[in-house]
């Protein structure tokens, strides 16, 4: 397998605040990578750099064999990179179906009948089909998160970036979400997922990266990373109990 995403020397600073410093990692095609790290480590910033919302100060991002460092956000989206927002941002005055269709028609560049099909399929996968004609503004949190995913999915992404999509869900609501992401992953889409609810993350990802102060603190096998003392110190805290939360 070849890497779908290769990041090297990536740096970004805001004045004195360094949010990415010489980051380097790669993500295999079809794999799922988790990102954890203390608050303010630069995780969301990294997603913005990959999607092109923020320009990088230095470094290169190679996606699918192509250097996309200078491409606009729109062009990257068209190339198959999709993201969800930490706080869901539905198009509140449009129906759920229309929301998904925006993803298909623009990001996926498939309109007309093909686009309708893609959108409907995305809704089916995320379990929103029965709400297709409901204005998105009326959705509750879980469904909003589903919609974030459905929209991203409708763009027909090769790489999907998820930012704290499980935040605010109760334990009982997590399994369906996890199943959804697993399904997505299994369908061949590469997933990068930022999450503080670590046990949810661990059920899906096959690689875990821990960021701190804009640098890679640890990367590799998820459980090994979680056991690394630095990660425990800066991120998990001494009393963190993986087993309990996951039960």
């Amino acid at each position, binding site marked *: 397998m070849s890497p779908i995403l290769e990041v090297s020397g990536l740096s970004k600073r805001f004045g004195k605040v360094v949010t990415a410093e010489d980051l380097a990692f790669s993500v295999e095609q079809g794999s799922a990578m988790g990102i954890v790290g203390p608050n303010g480590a630069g*995780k969301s910033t990294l997603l913005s750099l990959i999607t092109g919302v923020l320009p990088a100060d230095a470094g290169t991002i190679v996606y699918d064999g192509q250097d996309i460092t200078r491409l606009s956000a729109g062009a990257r989206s068209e190339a198959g990179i999709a993201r969800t927002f930490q706080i869901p941002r539905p198009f509140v005055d449009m129906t759920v179906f229309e929301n998904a269709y925006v993803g298909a028609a623009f990001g996926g560049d498939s309109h007309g009948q093909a686009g309708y099909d893609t959108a409907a399929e995305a809704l089916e996968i995320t379990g929103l089909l029965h709400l297709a004609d409901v204005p998105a503004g009326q959705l509750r949190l879980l469904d909003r998160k589903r919609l974030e995913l459905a929209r991203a999915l409708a763009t027909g992404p090769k790489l999907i970036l998820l930012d*704290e999509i499980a935040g605010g869900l109760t334990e009982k*609501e997590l399994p369906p979400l996890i199943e959804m992401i697993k399904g997505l992953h299994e369908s061949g889409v590469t997933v990068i997922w930022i999450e503080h609810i670590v046990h949810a993350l661990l059920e899906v990802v096959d690689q875990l990266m821990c960021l701190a102060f804009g640098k890679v603190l640890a990367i590799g096998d998820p459980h090994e990373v979680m056991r690394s003392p630095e990660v425990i110190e800066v991120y998990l*805290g001494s009393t963190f109990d993986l087993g309990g939360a996951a039960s």
Partner: protein
Amino acid sequence: MSLLEVNGLDVHYGDFQAIYGLDLRVDEGETLAVIGANGAGKSTLLKTIAGLMRPTAGDILYEGASLTPVPSYQRVPKGISLTPEGRKIFRSLTVEENLKVGAHIKRPGPWNLQSVYEAFPLVADRRDRLGVNLSGGEQQAAAIGRALMSNPRLLLLDEVSLGLAPVVVEQIYDAIPTITGNGTTVLVVEQDVNQALKVADRVQCLLEGRTVLEGPPSSLTRDEIAAAYFGI
């Protein structure tokens, strides 16, 4: 006498009813955790107590007096302070200015800039940064600090640990006994049941706007809670 007493509360969003005849009571110095699935009405409850929403029926008594005629901004001088869902940090103010605005109503008490910084190093390190530039977790921490600055008598925390790194969650839950130790009553909404059970004196579980389970953590089993959560 309870510090806060909610009697037969109904709350609507337009035609949609979010809370049905809810009763709730918090005693002075107590920590009550409100749990429940998404959309159970937890945030709505807190917003109504803080005065951001008006109930359609029922009453809220605070220190024995009805809050109904009191606009939200006049509830702060009475000692009610809410950390709202979604942080709501003031974007164009620095972290320190956010905290100072939190202290706009100067109630006497242990919390001031210095003590907040001591309790939350994450916040202290970012005191000069603008709210708009904070990461999700940083905002959450600053919002909690801001709520404390008014030295509340009743602190309402909505989804405290949302978006926080485990190590920070730990810090915050470690701080709660200190907060209650200072005489503050805490009403916390939490999606992480384990955390809630750890700090709370009492737990109240909501389902679709109604109370389905209530009691001290020790008297409740995990299965009971799970059942109450989803009304199975």
